[in-house]
Every structure is written in C-alpha cells, then in structure tokens.
C-alpha cells in the first residue's frame, strides 16, 4: 500500500505540475493580454513579470490549507477509499490539464477553477452517482460564471468613471494623471499589503491588516511612484501625456494581475496534489489538509514555466494584434480584475480570474470607454465557459473509469 501510494503521489505531482503549466500557458496570456496589447510591456517583459509574480503570488499568497476535494464539490464522507481519492485526483488533474490545453490551442480564455471542478465532479459521479455531488456548492460555482464577469464589469465601470472624472475632466489632465496614477497604484498596494498580513503573517484581524500593513505600504508606494512620475513626460498633447504616464503605471498593474492570478489559481493545480500527499503521509485525513510550502512552490514554478514556454507565443500574437487598447483602458481592466480577484479569493468566493478580466473589458465598453468590442467574440467566450465544467467532467469520468478498471 505504501509503495502504491508513493508511486501515485509521484504521478500526481507530475500531473499537478502539468496542470500548473497549462494554467500558465492559458491564463497568463489572459491576464497579461491587456498590458501587452496596450504596448505597456513587450511579450518578453510580460513573461518575466508574469513568471516572477505568478510564482510570488502562488508561493506567498496561495492557500495554505486546501479541501481534500476542491471547493468541497463532492461530499467527502462518501469517498472513503483512499484509492478512489488518488485515482480521482489523477483523473481530474489530467482532464483539467487536457481541457486547458485544448482551450489554449483555440485561444479560448476559460477558467482553470471550473476545469478542475468539472474534473472532480466527473469522477465523483462515475464513482458514486449524482448524489455525491454537493449541488449547493456546484450552484455556487455556476453562479460564479455569472458573478465573476458581472463584478468585474461593475468594478471596471466604476474605476473607469472615477479615472476619467479625476483625470480627463480636469483642466490639466497631465498634472492630474501625475497625482492620481500614484493614488491608484497606492490603492493596489493597500490590497497587496493587507493580503500580505493575512496570508503570509497569518493575521486574523482585518482592521489591523488594513491600518498597519495595507495603508502604510500603499502610502509609501504612493510617495515613491509620485516622485518617479514627477520626472519629465514631454508631450504637448495632454492625452498622449496621460497615456504615457499610464503606460508606465500598467507595468505595475500587470504585475498586480499576475500576483492575484498566482494567488487565486495555483490551488487548482496543487489542491489535488496536496490531497494525495495528505493520504500518502497520514491516510484519509478529513475535509481540509495543509498544503506544504514545497507544493505551493511546485505550482508556482509550473505556472511560471507555462508562461515562459507557451504563454510567450500567445502574448506575442496578442501584442501584435490588439491595437485599439489605450493605456488608461488597459490599466482600468488590470486594476479592476486584480482587485476583484484578490478580495474575492480572500473572502473565499469561487471567482475566476479569466471571467473577471473579460467582464472588466465589457464594463469599460458599457462606460463607453472602448470604441468597439466584438460581441460575437464575447459570445464565443461565454459559450466556452459553459462547456468547461461538462467537458472536463466527461474527460475525467472516462479517465477515472479507465484507472479503476486497470488498477
């Protein structure tokens, strides 16, 4: 039994790494596309930023505790056989990875969270029937299909309105941009600082986090950015001046997105690994298992490698083809999506980074900020969201059957 479990642990680790790779390949492009498209960063820089910050986000801000069954989508008491949990985790990981690779191939921005959930539900249903699925949880997940883009859209709409009000409506937009862009970056760092307190220092009190970590960090970052931006931005046209300031700002916000994404999505790859590891090290171990740091590092590394090997190509295409996105818009999308994802992941809401980013794009469109959005493409993206859970589920179910049959 011990040798059996160890062998499967190794396989799970490899698959977890593969899944992390697929997340890097698919999602990094989704979260960095706006910055690359608005020409704030080159694809090479995007890879570097995404690689480092996805890893940082995953390693430091990734969940240190995970459910044996991701998001509690199955009733754990109905799966008592460790072998089922191991085979199931392997099947779910492989299915989610395959689906992500297919989606990446077709350039569809799908949710990694939904892929893994589909995979888990798939093996669960094959093993113990429909009743094993916690449909309440499933409904929550399905709601997040709708909620993530809506919250992303509302946030981007508000941020865009606030941004244009504070900058473009003033008599001197460049001067306002010099003052307000550090403010937005400072705000991002208030969120990051608070997250640091909660995730890394395991602080419990939100107020302490915001007051002692978030606000001071944000304020320091505000001062540093403010003094940096005071340096010359030569331009006679205020609009070009504002955009050139936000081009610099977007370098930071794209990193913010990568950080948020790493923190939120790494669990999708390493959750099942942690579950199998728990079984291997201490037998069946209840609903929640700790995630060792090295597993988080493994996930972060996998994502970084995915970005570097495949995400790079995607971003190169995107960088060449998106020409209609200005830096203030790109910034709004990045800032809104990252903030929503970070806050939601810390509230434990099942939110999808990808869906939030797409929602943010729509939000700016609704605020009349983007000159033209292809609603045909939006429809394709939404359809891809609806098929993610069932497709990952079916693939996982088949793999699970096969494993049970062979094993």
């Amino acid at each position, binding site marked *: 039994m011990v040798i059996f479990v160890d062998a499967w642990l190794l396989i799970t680790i490899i698959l977890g790494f593969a899944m992390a790779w697929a997340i890097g390949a698919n999602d990094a*492009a*989704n979260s960095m*596309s706006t910055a690359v*498209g608005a020409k704030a960063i080159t694809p090479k820089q995007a890879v570097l930023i995404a690689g480092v910050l996805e890893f940082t986000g995953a390693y430091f801000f990734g969940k240190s505790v995970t459910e044996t069954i991701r998001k509690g989508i199955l009733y754990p008491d109905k799966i008592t056989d460790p072998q089922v949990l191991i085979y199931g985790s392997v099947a779910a990981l492989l299915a989610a990875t395959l689906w992500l690779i297919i989606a990446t191939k*077709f*350039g*569809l*921005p799908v949710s990694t969270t939904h892929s893994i959930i589909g995979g888990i539900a798939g093996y669960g249903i094959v093993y113990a029937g429909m009743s094993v699925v916690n449909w309440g949880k499933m409904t929550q997940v399905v709601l997040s299909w709708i909620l993530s883009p809506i919250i992303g859209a509302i946030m981007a709409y508000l941020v*865009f*309105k606030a*941004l*244009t*009000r504070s900058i*473009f*409506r003033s*008599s001197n*937009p460049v001067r306002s941009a010099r003052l307000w862009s550090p403010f937005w970056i400072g705000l991002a760092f208030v969120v990051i600082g608070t997250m640091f307190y909660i995730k890394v220092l395991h602080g419990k009190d939100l107020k302490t986090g915001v007051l002692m970590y978030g606000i001071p960090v944000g304020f320091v970052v505000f001062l540093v950015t403010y003094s940096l931006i005071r340096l010359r931005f030569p331009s006679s046209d205020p*609009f070009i001046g504002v955009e050139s300031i936000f081009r610099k700002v977007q370098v930071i916000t794209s990193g913010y997105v990568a950080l948020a994404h790493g923190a939120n999505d790494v669990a999708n790859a390493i959750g099942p690994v942690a579950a199998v590891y728990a079984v291997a090290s201490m037998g069946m171990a209840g609903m929640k298992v700790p995630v060792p740091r090295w597993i988080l590092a493994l996930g972060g590394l996998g994502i970084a490698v995915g970005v570097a090997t495949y995400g790079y190509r*995607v971003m190169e*295409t*995107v960088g*060449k*083809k*998106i*020409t*209609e*996105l*200005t830096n203030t818009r790109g910034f709004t999308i990045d800032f809104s999506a990252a903030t929503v994802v970070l806050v939601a992941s810390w509230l434990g809401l099942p939110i999808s980074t990808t869906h939030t980013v*797409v929602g943010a*794009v*729509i939000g700016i*469109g609704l*605020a*009349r*900020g*983007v*000159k*033209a*959005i*292809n*609603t*045909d*493409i*939006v429809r*394709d*993206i939404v359809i891809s969201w609806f098929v993610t859970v069932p497709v990952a589920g079916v693939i996982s179910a088949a793999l699970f059957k096969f494993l049970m049959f062979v094993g």
Partner: protein
Amino acid sequence: MQVWTKLFAKSPFKPLIKHADVVLETVETLEKALRAWYDGNYDEMKRLALEVDRLEDVADRIKEEIRDSLSSKLMMAVSREDVLIYLHMQDKVADAAEDTAKWLLVKRPDGIPDGIKGIILQMGTESIKAAKLVYDAIVQMDRVIESGFAEGEIEREYSLIRQIESVENEIDGLDTKLMQLVFENADELNWAEGFYILNIARTLSNISDKAKDSAERIRLMMNK
C-alpha cells in the same frame, strides 16, 4: 487563433477620420479651383475641378469599406446608426463639392460681372470653411471618447458644431445678395449665364448644408 486579439474590434473612428481627410482634401481642391475660376485661369481651374472629381471617388471607396466593416455585432461607444448616418453625410459633403466642380466645368466664366464672381467666391470660401470644420469635429469626437466624455472636450466639440452651424447664416445672407445682383444685372446676362451662376451658388451652399447635417449627427453621437 487567439480570441483576445479579436475581442477588441477596430475603432470605426480611424477610418472615419481617414474619410474626413479625403473629404477635406476634396473641398480644399475645390476652393483652389474656385479661386482659379475667379482669376480667370480656366486651364488651372479645369485641372483642379477634375481632381475634385477624382478625390470624390476615393472618398466613396473609403465609405464603402467602412460600411462593410461595421458589423452590427459591435458594441461601440457611439451607436452604429449614428456612425453610418454621419459617414453618409460626410460623404455628401464631397458629393456637393463634386457638383460644384461639374458646374464650373460647364463653360468658361467669360462675361460674368466681377461683383457676382466676388460674391460667389465669398460663398465658396464660407461654405468650404464649414466643410473644413467637419474634419476638426470628427477628430474632436475621437478625443471626446478618448477622454471618457469629459465635459471640457464635449464643450470644445459643441463650439465646433456651433461654428459649422453659424456658417449657414452667412451663406443665406450672401445668397440673397447674389440673387439681387443677378436680377440687377439681368440685362447684361443671358439666361444660360444666369442659370450657370445660380447653380454654382446652389451647389456651393449645399456643401455647408451637408456639413451642417454631419455636425448635427455628431451632436447625436455625443448624446447616444
């Protein structure tokens, strides 16, 4: 295939401005032709009037391209209908310029009293001024969107629109004056010359008319 690259569609404003650019060139050429006509430089006028004709064709082609590319599946900052109608109106400015060019080519302007020629030149200058402002207005519209509909930019746009509209009054005044002159000089002019003069005047004032229609559509774009 990357969905991201297609999510953001091409802005209709760049091609609209390109079209406006050609229309601007058309009316500027017409202005030069009108001056050559006034100076009695018939050969130069003929060359320029033919150039107006050619430029109008270019504008037409760009118009078709924009129409084909504006799918109804786009979510835009301004309504698709406004963009299409605006484009139609902007194109009509070039059409009107071409009409004038055609009338200029009909005959040599010998025997037209200088006073009448002077007023026609003045009408042309005014009318073409409105057409030139249309270019500024559509460029400004792009900035209005870029600024997230900032009040300052909207105000600048309104002031351009008002300028275009005010040209209309001046043209009306000149038109009346021209009529009076034509009838005062009725004895020196034959019917063909009278017909020629009045048609040039009519097509010229038509340019500012269409410019005004374009400006009105920009006003609607801002309101959506």
